[in-house]
């Protein structure tokens, strides 16, 4: 198997995730797309591991999974908070940063 199979798959998923993050309005959907990005990174790490015959990438893939879990927890808590305050989780309504 070529390593590029896996790397290209990862790159494609990454770009899909980016597209999703940019086009989605619903905050939960944005978080879903971010998961897509994180997964693509994991595929890369493990592919490099398999190429080099090490196990370090495995360790970091595990760390990424843990970080992702934390991120989803906090992210969804924030979404809930926003929902409670505004009765909407549309990111377009959050434009306090308007300059």
């Amino acid at each position, binding site marked *: 198997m070529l390593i590029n199979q896996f790397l290209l798959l990862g790159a494609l998923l990454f770009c899909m995730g*980016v597209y999703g*993050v*940019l*086009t989605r309005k619903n905050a939960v959907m944005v978080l879903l797309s971010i998961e897509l990005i994180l997964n693509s990174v994991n595929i890369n790490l493990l592919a490099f591991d398999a190429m080099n015959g090490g196990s370090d990438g495995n360790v970091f893939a595990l760390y990424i999974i843990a970080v992702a879990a934390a991120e989803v927890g906090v992210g969804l808590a924030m979404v809930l908070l926003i929902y409670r305050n505004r009765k909407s989780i549309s*990111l377009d309504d959050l*434009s306090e940063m308007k300059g």
Partner: protein
Amino acid sequence: MFAEEAAGEAAHAAAGWFLEHAWLIPVIPAVAFFLIIFFGKKMPKGGSEIGILSMVASLVIAAGTAYQWIDWSHHSEEPIIKSITWWQSGGLKFGIGQHIDGLAVMALLLVSFISTLVQIYSTEYVRGDRRYTHFFASLTLFSAGMLSMVLAPNMVQFILGWEIMGLCSFMLIGHWWEEEANSKAALKAFFTVRTGDMGLLVGTAMLLAIFGTLDIGGEGGINSLVANGEFDSKNMLMWAAIALFIACIGKSGQFPLHTWLPDAMAGPTPVSSLLHSSTMVVAGVFLVARLYPVFHTGLDINIAGQHFNFVAVIGGITILIAAALAFVQNDIKKVLAYSTVSQLGYMMMGLGVGAWMPAVFHIFTHAFFKCCLFLCAGSIAHTGSHHSFDMKTDMGGLRKKMPITFWTWIVSTLALCGVPFFSGFFSKDEIIDSAKHNHYTVFGIIGLIGAFMTAAYMTRATYLTFFGKARGGAAHFVDGHEDHSHDAAADEVHHDIDGLDTHLHPVHAAHDDHGHGDIQHGKPLPFAPSDSPWQITVPLIILGVLAIFSGYLNAAPFKWHYFEHWLESSMGLPFGEEPGMIPEPPTFSWVAAAPSIILVALGITLSWLISKKVFGEEKNGLQGLTQRNALLGAGHKFLVNKYYLDALYEGVIVKAIAHPIANAAYWVNQHVLDGIVNAVGIGGRRTGEWVYRNVDQRVVDGAVNGSGATARGAGGVLQPVQSGKVSMYGALLFGAAAVGALVLVLVNS
């Protein structure tokens, strides 16, 4: 000896087709689930036909398996184990397959049979529901989960089936999630059971650590290792058994995790029936029966020279507590729910006191009559009481109009109470008898008291439902005229009924909106002239017949022990008097059975008389007693509030654990972090002021003034970019990164 073994070998080679292919039983509904999900909506009957067909197919195979097992059990005690490895990691193999023995065959037959009937029943009960297809998909997957659990050859597959059931029960209990109470009940069931499920994972991991295998039965399986005493530390085994038992407590609704079961009544009635008779709640009992050596040896507690089993303690407590709660319920389904909890207590107690066979037999008989009772309750609500389950406001006097429902209810109630010659008698009495025989005298007495209470609360429920004066919804149904005590919607209902005599349904569209406690959405209100349609009554009749006759498979009074013979190889422990063995079962005598029969008779009579006084028509001193007498009132309140366990879980535990953490975090946030932020802020302001005075004012100003005009122009161009929209900023970020990377690539190549 050798000849016998050789015969066994030969027989093994010739195990019938059904025994070899029993793994198909859960596979068929699992496949059907996907078919329903993907194609169900396009089918003429919304996918229900696939569900029913798959359950019938499973039932046929299960019946074939049972038939061949009966044959098999005459000459062999070996289970038929087949397994393929689907995963291995670090020398550990995970298999999936089948482990067919008497216990598994019994459960397979039971589950596929009850599931088939419940699905047929559901075609009428949830007709026209907005999530009809999803309902059948979940039901089918639920059965698949239970079926794959009961024939699990190892703990991993067991957990798989167990968790599938947990998920499906969440979906089914919350089927009508538009109402907040229902979705709350679903969440409560899910979380309570999950609390216990942690125990299953921990316990399984500990079993793996102790025995180095996850296989349940067969040579070198967990059961035989425990039975032969091949483990290092009894303490470890005890902790593993405790962890597993916590899972059983959660799943089977034993004290103190029983609080989710009555709330689970929020689901459609067929779901309650399936959950409470043969599947979900039985799973915990099944686990104890399946890994019986582990529990029997591991939870054997020795205090002051007195051996007793912890399983029996929990079972005994549950019997009494749940039976007491059943007295104060007004919702007919909740009475049945607490009754289930109490009957599960009997099973647990039976397993605890060493009466494996009667306990498993009680699973078998209980499934039929409890399923029948729930379906009766559904039939009443569907046809007789205006979709309400409240016995006090919407039922009464229904026996004439709904004869089939009435008679099947009566038969099942008698079976549940343990009246002689109905099925419940043969199993329940055997449990009580064994408890006494095995020196668990206290538990024998608890069993007797439980039998008395069961008889009493079921009589109360029967009286409220079928006798006396028709009230509320039932009054419309029975008399066809308006009831005076009814709610504001009564007038509208009245009009509808006037319309009904000439023509049926269309006027009922507005009906579902007005408020009865448990009104169920999405269904037309039939107002059938008499009993429910055939899809409902046929399952009732079948179950009613079985509620009488299923007990005769193991009728001790007549020395009929077929059931025992088919199942005894699953027990995993030999008979004997030594520790770690099961005491021989007692021989039946009418003298020993007499106390329980007398108590049941007494319970029925007393409860009948009191019910007539309290709920009957003529006024008397017993009515409203709980309001007048402080002590009784307090007891009543204590029971109505379910011993305040929910308050304990939600108020005390959540407050004591979750809130201090949150408060501490808040405090840190307010004091520490704010302090740092403030300090940084003050420092920053000082720096800023200095920079402002010395750099900005004197040096930069001049330069800026010159470029001001330019900046204003650029700002005007860039202002749309500062839209405040996060996604826009993100697009710019990623775009810039891509362009930057492109530049780097181009420069470097």
